[in-house]
């Protein structure tokens, strides 16, 4: 008999506690992100696909076309080319293509770069209907950005 009354009063109390919790939650601000309307910025350490780092002064890529990233890549997704203009000391990057379809974001390219030329982007809005959408011309992307 004691158990019966405990069940009723204990149960009623726990129900009231539950209602109290949801009532408080009801008036708290929402925690969901309104994604297409507000695109959140990714955190600093997010690993997106790689991007070229522009020179702070000139805006041109830091890359000197040494090709270390290309050699470091285990999946062979990076292909780059450069040329040495007349009278210049360094090579200039003319083409930097990342095939993101095979990239596993291992980061070997970023680690291998000695010239502070590539880094992970914070770009995560990637969707496409075609495989070719994910072959990025990073040089063109850099120009578009600046």
């Amino acid at each position, binding site marked *: 008999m004691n158990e*019966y009354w405990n069940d*009723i009063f204990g149960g009623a109390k726990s*129900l009231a506690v*539950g*209602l109290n*919790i*949801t*009532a408080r*939650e*009801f*008036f*708290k*601000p*929402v*925690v*969901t992100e*309104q994604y297409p309307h507000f695109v959140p910025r990714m955190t600093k350490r997010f690993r997106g696909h790689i991007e070229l780092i522009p020179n702070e002064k000139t805006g041109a890529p830091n890359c000197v076309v040494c090709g270390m990233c290309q050699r470091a890549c285990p999946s062979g997704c990076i292909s780059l080319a450069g040329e040495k203009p007349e009278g210049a000391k360094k090579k200039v990057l003319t083409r930097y293509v990342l095939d993101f379809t095979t990239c596993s974001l291992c980061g070997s390219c970023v680690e291998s770069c000695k010239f502070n030329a590539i880094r992970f982007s914070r770009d995560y809005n990637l969707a496409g209907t075609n495989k070719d959408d994910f072959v990025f011309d990073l040089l063109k992307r850099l120009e578009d950005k600046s």
Partner: protein
Amino acid sequence: MDTSIWQPILYLIGIMAFAGLNAAYLGWCERKGAGHVQRRIGPKEVGPYGLLQPLADGIKLMTKQLLVPQGVDGILFRVAPILAMIPAITSMVAIPFSPNIQARSIDLSVLLIFALASIGMMAVLIGGWASNNKYAMISATRAVSQNIAYEIPMLIMVITVVMMTGSMNLEDIAAKQQGGFWNWNIFPVAGESVAQALIMPVAFLIFFICSIAETNRAPFDMAEAESELIAGHMTEYGSMGFGLFMMGEYLNIVVGACLTTILFLGGWDCPLGLLPGVWWFLLKIYILIFTFIWIRWTYPRTQIYKLLNLSWKVLIPFSLGILLLTAIFIKVEGFLI
């Protein structure tokens, strides 16, 4: 009573509009409520604050094909959704929204509404049986056992109120509670007996719990139980068949809230006795409906045997006790004052 032909027509249009608006917008309220309880926003894309969402849902449901699967009982399968809707709308005829807004004052309106509520349960039974689907069948049997179990304490509570009032007319019951919250049946301190006032809150609680179970709402939505029975009796329904079931469900909630308001919360009476009118009635039913939504998104679903245990072991003994005490208080004048 005015015998003009316009009066019934106006009431018909009014009730249909009230029923339709409620059925549509309670869905919106429910989704908003669910959203905020879980700290989301809820519908927001269609129209400002998602207010056109019911319209979009309606268009979507109406443009879908009304599929009748093979092996179902053709007639009953088509009748069930309509049967879910009719009793809820019909009940509104007898509900007094205010002293002068009532389609028809019927002497036995309490009886009529509870009879219609039982017919509403038939829709679940028929729909479940006609679907020729094991989930729907289980749902139908659950719904019936649940309804039998919860109608008893609910009706006993109604009898208590009817005994106190001495009338089965909802209008009389509401009219007797006028003049401030101390006259309401939930806590009638101004009544003849103080002891009566002490047991009435319990009666209100029992009635409220039963009306949640009666309308098949969570945590008593054993008939729907989407995690185990898909959607129960609505599994095989698509398009507007499903839509009618949903609308019927929401209208049952409205009728349940109206009844609770009239039987226990003084109908159209203001808590402090000022400006009684239909607005108080509407305010009360929407507070009750909000409580329904609040409860739904707070508690998980019970199990069928626990639900029956609650009814047979707790609610029915308690309600019988209340009925007996009420009878004693009425018979023995000046008891325990």
